């Protein structure tokens, strides 16, 4: 049913290695567009919602396990600022928080050394200050840039390609592209495939995350099919949202996307990463997402190489939960350094 992978462009993990032991996975080289597979893909919304609503009741993570899971979640956060009023100063503060996301005395009480977030995520113009700050701090943390006319993806095609190249040149090692939603909505899968191929090509060694903007795709079936097409075209990650749509990451959308990732892995042997973005702001939600990944994709995916949260306020809630775990008392926002 599924054709052989056709590309040999995979170079392996080139991203700055994080500080913890990690398994490196070969990059997804992509494959020919397989329309039989795409068209046969189904997603039953009600059943998917039922699975998602039952999951938090099926898996409960408590005490030390909860603390460990929350630490893990922090290492998977793409700490993000995507605002029109971003300045180098704001981005420097973000980078400092990404490098030291949790107060050291809390970490030492938990018996772990320093951790960092998975990456920082910014607009193109903020790449340079971010890269510079992190280099200055001596922290090997990837900088991700949103690209291709983010968030709508409707700027001239050649400029979108060029934006990727510019961002890579500026030092971004991860590029979060947005797909053309109209290709999905009109069923033009070939166009989506070609676009994604071009974006991947433009990224070179930088990893590419395909933002599907699931809130604008109309149906879970479309989400499943778009996920597959983007993976066939060589996406390293598939990502739900820009954070700018009215509906961003949800559990049902996540379930559909990670099941597509699982099918793709079973068919090709390549692991594609997953990034839910937007709307995940509570520690409890983060644990539910991790449980979903663990259940549906397995422990292999519980690494920043293959899973990220696109989030800005999640970290704050996790910090408060961790302090509560250490002290037994509920915490307050101002007790934790702002990002």
């Amino acid at each position: 049913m599924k054709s052989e992978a056709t590309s040999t462009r995979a170079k392996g993990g080139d991203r700055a290695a994080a500080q913890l032991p990690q398994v490196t996975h070969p990059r997804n080289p992509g494959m020919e567009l397989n329309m039989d597979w795409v068209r046969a893909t189904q997603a039953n919304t009600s059943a998917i919602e039922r699975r998602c609503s039952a999951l938090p009741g099926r898996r409960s993570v408590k005490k030390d396990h909860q603390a460990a899971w929350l630490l893990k979640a922090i290492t998977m956060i793409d700490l993000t600022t995507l605002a029109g009023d971003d300045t180098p100063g704001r981005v420097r503060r973000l980078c400092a928080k990404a490098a030291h996301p949790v107060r050291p005395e809390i970490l030492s009480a938990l018996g772990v050394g320093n951790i960092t977030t998975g990456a920082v995520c910014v607009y193109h113009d903020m790449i340079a200050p971010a890269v510079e700050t992190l280099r200055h701090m001596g922290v090997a943390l990837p900088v991700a840039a949103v690209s291709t006319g983010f968030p709508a993806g409707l700027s001239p095609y050649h400029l979108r390609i060029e934006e990727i190249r510019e961002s890579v040149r500026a030092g971004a090692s991860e590029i979060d592209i947005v797909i053309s939603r109209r290709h999905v909505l009109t069923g033009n899968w070939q166009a989506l495939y070609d676009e994604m191929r071009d974006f991947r090509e433009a990224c070179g060694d930088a990893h590419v995350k395909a933002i599907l903007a699931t809130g604008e795709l109309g149906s879970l079936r479309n989400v499943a099919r778009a996920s597959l097409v983007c993976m066939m075209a060589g996406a390293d990650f598939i990502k739900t949202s820009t954070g700018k749509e009215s509906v961003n990451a949800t559990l049902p959308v996540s379930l559909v996307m990670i099941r597509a990732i699982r099918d793709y892995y079973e068919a090709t042997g390549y692991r594609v990463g997953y990034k839910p973005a937007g709307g995940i702001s509570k520690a409890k939600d983060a644990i539910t997402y991790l449980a979903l990944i663990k259940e549906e994709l397995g422990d292999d995916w519980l690494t920043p190489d293959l899973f990220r949260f696109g989030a800005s306020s999640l970290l704050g809630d996790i910090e408060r939960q961790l302090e509560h775990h250490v002290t037994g008392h509920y915490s307050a926002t101002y007790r934790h350094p702002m990002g």
Partner: protein
Amino acid sequence: MTVKEIFDTMDYGLAPESAKEALGWIAERKGQFGLYIGGRMTGVGDTFATRNPANGEVLAQVTQATPDDVDTAVTAARKAQRKWAALSGHERAKYLYALARLVQKHSRLFAVLETLDNGKPIRESRDIDIPLVARHFYYHAGMAQLQDAELPDREALGVCGQIIPWNFPLLMLSWKIAPAIAMGNTVVLKPAEYTSLTALLFAQICDEAGLPKGVVNIVTGDGRVGEAIVTHEDIDKIAFTGSTEVGRVIRRETAGSGKSLTLELGGKSPYIVFDDADLDSAVEGLVDAIWFNQGQVCCAGSRLIVQEGIADRFYAKLKARMDKLRMGDPLDKSIDVGAVVDPVQHAQITKLVEAGASDGELYQAPCPIPDTGCFYPPTLITGLSSASMLMQEEIFGPVLVATTFRTPSEAVEIANNTRYGLAATVWSENVNLTLDIAPKLAAGVVWVNGTNMFDAAAGFGGVRESGFGREGGWEGLQTYTKPRAKAQSLKPIAAFAAPKEAKVDALDRTAKFYIGGKQARPDGGYSQAVWSKQGDLLGHVGIANRKDIRNAVEAAHAAAGWSKTTGHLRAQILYYVGENLSARAEEFAARIDAMMGGRNGRKEVEAAVSRLFTYAAWADKYDGAAKPVPMRGVALAMNEPVGVIGGFCPDDAPLLGLVSLMAPAIAMGNRVVLAASEPFPLAATDFYQVLDTSDVPAGVVNIVTGSHAELASPLAGHLGVDAVWAQSGADISAIVEGESAGNLKRSWVNNANARDWFGAAGEGREFLVHATEVKTIWVPYGE
């Protein structure tokens, strides 16, 4: 493990729900329980231990009720019943509402206690069982409130004996008690011996709700207590949920007692996956189907029937999913599969799997099995066929058996190749396919793209050997109410005896049977003369024997296409029968007068024509319903024909009586085998000529003549007959009910009570209810 280590392994760890409050509740009662009778707990009698199946520890000592205790409980229930039923619906609604609220207020205590006693995961008792219990009381509080306005012609049955199983102890209690007391009945309920504790906690909340003494009585103990309830003379209705084997025994024991009976029994429910289904969701559905409550669910989707082309891929996905299931301490909040209820059940599952697994390939989830307690791993056996023992026998454990199919019609054939008919599940993204398949499945409940969905508003119950009666919805109230009517004894009518000097018309007229659209001679070769009051020989009729019954039932089965016709077509045919009968009204009137020696013939023919019109009218108007269940989707209640109905026609209205049974049955799409009025059979045999000229397809109506007492056993015992209506003048109610135990066919008997066939009691909804089964089809939707 340190936080650092967990960070690397990302294990779940333990998340135990505390048992402290529940154990404290037991300890406050010194770990021993009496019975709840007449609004108070009795002293503790002879006791037996109830254990936690997850670790074998004794939780409490529970009283084994004696027959005297049961008698005391029935007396208390009887004493309370009249006053309870006399309350306004609103008054009763307030009590049911209080019970619903109290279940919610004590929800965690109920949930933990249930898990301790039963072994089911706390997630299920907390998120599924207890919320459904509260929902059931809320819903039926509403039914009590509406009773006076909506059900003015029906009244409570009286005292109900209710026997429930151990798989959903409190939920089954609520399914039994809520509709019963809502309608003004009082109850004596026996929980299963393995799982009495939540029923005893429920007794406490009955007190907290201020429920009048004796409305609810709870007697604990083993099957002997159940037997004392079943055989108690002052109980009006038995409701039983449990095994088909015990259901059959209860059917026999209550036969002829006049007790109303509903049975919700076993199943081997098919789970059909088409190649265009969302396979991952269908796999997840199986987790909810067969690994819910350790597979100890009567309606568990336990027979996987998957389209051949996707079977290997589907099995691979299923096995991968099984690898993720977690089994262990049911109080752990991250557990999917808990303990089976008792070592006896564990041994039974083990035995069946050992006996049958070699027919196929066995795969068991690799989850670690705890050292102590009754744990059985999730199991899949593929490569079986319908002939495999495990495809036919209910296992009642976490064991899924699987086979493949090629076409939709083959899927239906395999699905229906079972003695059971409780539930069925269909997965396909094609709405045309699912809505075509659902009505074809022999089941009381069909779930489309989902499974094990329940709600108080939606009827639940089976066909075939899965029992009869529905629980939930308006249809569920049928079995806790009866028409307001004074029973009058039926006077037996004997045929006129042969005169000393026969007056015989020279021209012989021989009435035959009407089988498969043809006139048939009696297999036995015996006939009897029919005499008028004055001694005229009116004709001869055949004496049917068991082989004639066999032939008639076979003809009825061959006419299965009738069940698929439209109501409009059936209406047209019934009108036409009426028209043709009307054209021969004089002749029929004369025949009736000659046979009965009266002058009512004309009136009876007119009533019969009107009755045919009534059911012609109903044929396309007995609507189903769309139930407002709490989900995005619809639960359709469809009125489906029962199948082949055997009928013993009343003696006292030879034409009208036959039409009164035949017309509602065939209007709803059933096929019938009718035994004509025994003393006055010739109106029926004349009538088949009317049928012949009215486009009634062959085999839809089959008519035999002969002794009802002789035919009761072969017809009610026939395993291919789905229901028997005994409205005979002969006292055959006990035989019919007893013999119907064979395939647990529905029986509707008159218990030797008369019915006014000419009046309102002779037609209407009561007949339509008996002529149909409500099938609930759940269709969640959303894109």
